[in-house]
């Protein structure tokens, strides 16, 4: 097998086609832009993680003693802002999506390559403002920027951070636009909608949310800035505004944003489950439409963040019932992934371990969502550590398992090198254990009554907080291990064949790493998604032969 791959390995591919900083910074190749994003989001994951370390250290003891209250408030705010806007939202779409959408549909690039590069620059411009805000003192409003605290009371760099979020939003919009146009117009001949990999379906659903939702957060930040700078009364009642209006506007984007984070992860998991078992996804159409259903219903549930915000109790009822509606397509996905394993050929390689981890986190995160959507129960656990635990399981556990699982699975394609399997399995296990130890105690803390964003807390909460911090140290190590061995493998890893997994999908029918134009000839698709065949039948399109 590997001898065949070695003999067909191309001499030039997208990585060695040109050298020098300029060839990267001015590239229009979606694969190179994906790597630029990889560097950016990894940097911000590191920054956000650093804040998390300090938060967990402070919470080891009930009394505040490591940093000042003011500093602590800035730490959790910057942790949230950096992780949400600069890591979780762009991570999978901008890195894996950018790399794979054209490859999976048999296209040479995205529809608008220059726009794609522009979106990376816009991301970095927004990131720059946010970094300046951090360096010059940070911001203490919480990543939710609730008014009137953010508009009339906070003395942090609200404006700078807001500008950062505002600008970065446009990079999201451009990426979403690019994906939608590409998926509509650039599919290879024969690649009909129901032959598309589920990764593409979930990215399509994600893109819809990006272009419909992101403008609303931009407007909200703009209104916030207007009130803060020009004292136009929009949210602060002292100026004639309504503070609850801010929450409606903020969550109209920020709830769907959760699906921007987790839908792409679901797409990755579908690929991992299918390809690591060599089976077509059980109930393909149900999984595909579940993504669309989640995207649509996701826009109608923002009010479940306002159950205790003096919103009308009848509005609360509507938002509660709609939130349960979102739970159904999510459950359908879990059932179908599990059923796919039935009579499969299940590999124990790292990617499937991440998929199993994702399903585990998603069950806990998703089921605790049912707790929070239950009005009378939410009253007790709202704004406590129960919520913190819940959204970390979904947004962080789910998204990072998808992201890391995908990164491992496509690493041979991206870099042309294999990662060390043993280390990778070990890291996946460490992350799974560390994550549960970190966040499961927080469910219990929340039900016991510990509110979130507390710098100091009553003694009875200490034991669980210490457990959480201990788990976080394991989790931190778990995240560092892949950073080390993936970097190592770029130079020292074994050379990867075109299709090391015996996987199905157009991206595996070109060389690893692919040439700049992806495919020497546009492939014609005559097969369904995940129509696994013996290896000799699945021809590799080899650029050396054309």
């Amino acid at each position: 097998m590997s001898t065949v791959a070695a003999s067909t390995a191309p001499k030039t591919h997208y990585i060695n086609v040109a050298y020098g900083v300029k060839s990267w910074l001015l590239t229009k190749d979606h694969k190179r832009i994906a790597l630029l994003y990889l560097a950016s989001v990894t940097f911000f994951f590191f920054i956000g993680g650093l804040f998390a370390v300090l938060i967990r250290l402070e919470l080891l003891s009930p009394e505040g003693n490591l940093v000042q209250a003011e500093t602590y408030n800035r730490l959790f705010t910057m942790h949230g802002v950096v992780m949400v806007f600069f890591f979780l939202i762009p991570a999978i779409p901008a890195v894996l999506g950018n790399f794979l959408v054209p490859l999976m549909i048999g296209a040479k690039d995205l529809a608008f390559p220059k726009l794609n590069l522009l979106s990376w620059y816009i991301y970095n411009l927004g990131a720059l403002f946010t970094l300046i805000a951090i360096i010059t003192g940070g911001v203490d409003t919480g990543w939710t920027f609730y008014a009137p605290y953010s508009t009339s009371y906070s003395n942090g760099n609200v404006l700078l951070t807001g500008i950062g979020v505002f600008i970065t939003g446009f990079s999201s919009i451009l990426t979403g636009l690019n994906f939608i146009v590409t998926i509509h117009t650039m599919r290879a001949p024969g690649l009909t909608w129901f032959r598309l990999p589920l990764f593409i379906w979930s990215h399509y659903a994600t893109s819809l949310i990006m272009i419909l939702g992101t403008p609303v957060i931009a407007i909200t930040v703009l209104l916030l800035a207007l009130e803060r700078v020009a004292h136009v009364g929009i949210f602060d009642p002292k100026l004639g505004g309504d503070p609850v209006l801010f929450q409606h506007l903020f969550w109209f984007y920020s709830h769907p944003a959760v699906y921007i984070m987790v839908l792409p992860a679901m797409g990755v998991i579908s690929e991992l489950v299918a390809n690591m078992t060599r089976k077509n996804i059980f109930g393909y159409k149900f999984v595909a439409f579940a993504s669309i259903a989640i995207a649509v219903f996701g826009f109608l549930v923002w009010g479940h963040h306002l159950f205790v915000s003096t919103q009308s109790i009848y509005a609360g009822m509507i938002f509660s019932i709609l939130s349960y509606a979102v739970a159904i397509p999510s459950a359908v996905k879990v059932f179908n992934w599990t059923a796919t394993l039935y009579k499969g050929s299940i590999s124990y390689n790292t990617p499937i371990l991440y998929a199993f981890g994702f399903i585990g986190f998603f069950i806990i995160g998703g089921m605790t969502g049912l707790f929070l959507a239950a009005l009378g129960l939410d009253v007790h656990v709202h704004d406590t550590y129960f919520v913190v635990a819940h959204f970390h399981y979904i947004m962080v556990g789910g998204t990072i398992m998808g992201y890391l699982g995908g990164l491992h699975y496509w690493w041979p394609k991206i870099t042309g090198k294999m990662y060390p399997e043993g280390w990778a399995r070990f890291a996946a296990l460490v992350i799974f254990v560390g994550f549960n130890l970190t966040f499961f105690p927080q469910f219990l803390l929340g039900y016991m009554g510990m509110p979130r964003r507390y710098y100091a807390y009553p003694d009875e909460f200490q034991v669980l907080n210490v457990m959480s911090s201990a788990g976080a140290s394991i989790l931190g190590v778990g995240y560092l291990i892949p950073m080390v061995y993936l970097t190592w493998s770029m130079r020292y890893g074994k050379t990867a064949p075109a299709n090391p997994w015996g996987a199905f999908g157009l991206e595996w029918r070109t060389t690893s790493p692919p040439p700049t134009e992806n495919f020497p000839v546009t492939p014609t698709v005559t097969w369904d998604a995940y129509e696994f065949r013996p290896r000799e039948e699945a021809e590799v399109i080899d650029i050396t032969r054309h």
Partner: protein
Amino acid sequence: MQVTVPFSPEQASTYAGDVDNLYGFLWAMTIAFGVVITLAIIYFAVKYRRRTEEEIPRPIEGSMKLEVAWTVIPFFIAMGIFVWGTSIYFKQYTIPNEALEIYVQAKQWMWKFQHATGQREINELHVPLGRRVKLTMTTEDVIHSFYVPAFRIKLDVVPGKYSTIWFEPTRAGRYHLFCAEYCGTSHSGMIGWINVMEPSEYQAWLAGGATEGSLASAGQKLFQDLMCNNCHRPGGRGPELEGLFGKQQRLTDGTTVTVDESYIRESIRMPAAKVAEGFQPVMPTFTENVVSEEQLVQLIEYIKSLGQQKGAAGTAPGTGTPSPQPPSAASTGAEQQGLPEANRPPSNNTRMSNPVGSAPPANRRPQ
């Protein structure tokens, strides 16, 4: 029947048990669902492990029956949870008609309480066991959230309006009050205590407490000092206020509004917002610089007391004893006797003349 779930705070209110039951049920369901899926994954992963590098399993297209089953069954379960959760919510957020009324003002970073009988507390609240307590809350600055885990109750306190919740303590004791909505630097220091006392101890606490007279009597004095009665009198330029509370009021735009705490508050802060039918919008605006949130509460209690006096003998302002208290609290004779002191200047009434916890001797506090 009430279940005690591990890692839960004490159950100290009438609906705490309801919340715990739903919580316990949902964990049971989560564990059941998680175990079933986990076992299925482990079983499949072992049984169908890859045996040769080249094997290609036979494809399975899916099953309409299964898809319908695992869409419809979770849907009905979800609707059941929805109904269950909603019924508790309505219990928590539907304010009973008869309740002991307490006013809450939040500010960075403290909780201030005003009892109708005039006691004032900061970060400590004393309430009797077995009595419904209604809280009418507002804030002087940012959003806060009133959270008592032992009662399973929480509601945001939003600037510019009143929000109301209620609870009925079922167990004497001292329970944590937290601010649950992030409100700035000392958010985590905005902690107080709810002291639930046996009714007899509570009466003793009331008796040993405030000496400055009820909110209504303070409000009456304030009403005169602000010269409200220049217009709010029979034939005056403003509506008569006697017997108005709780009634439907027709407005100049033809709609009607219930005269409650929120409407009175709005009519003082922004008189032109909803003008009563037959009157001109001539009332001046009273900002918080003129009438503080605490004073506003006094005026409201006074107007409420006018409603209760209707039909009683002396209705002219300045006579009679305004008694906004529901019957069971009416035995607080000490407060009624303390009334004349309400004739002090309003500034005395509105400042912290009864600071934190000074009222009850320490030995009366249940621990």
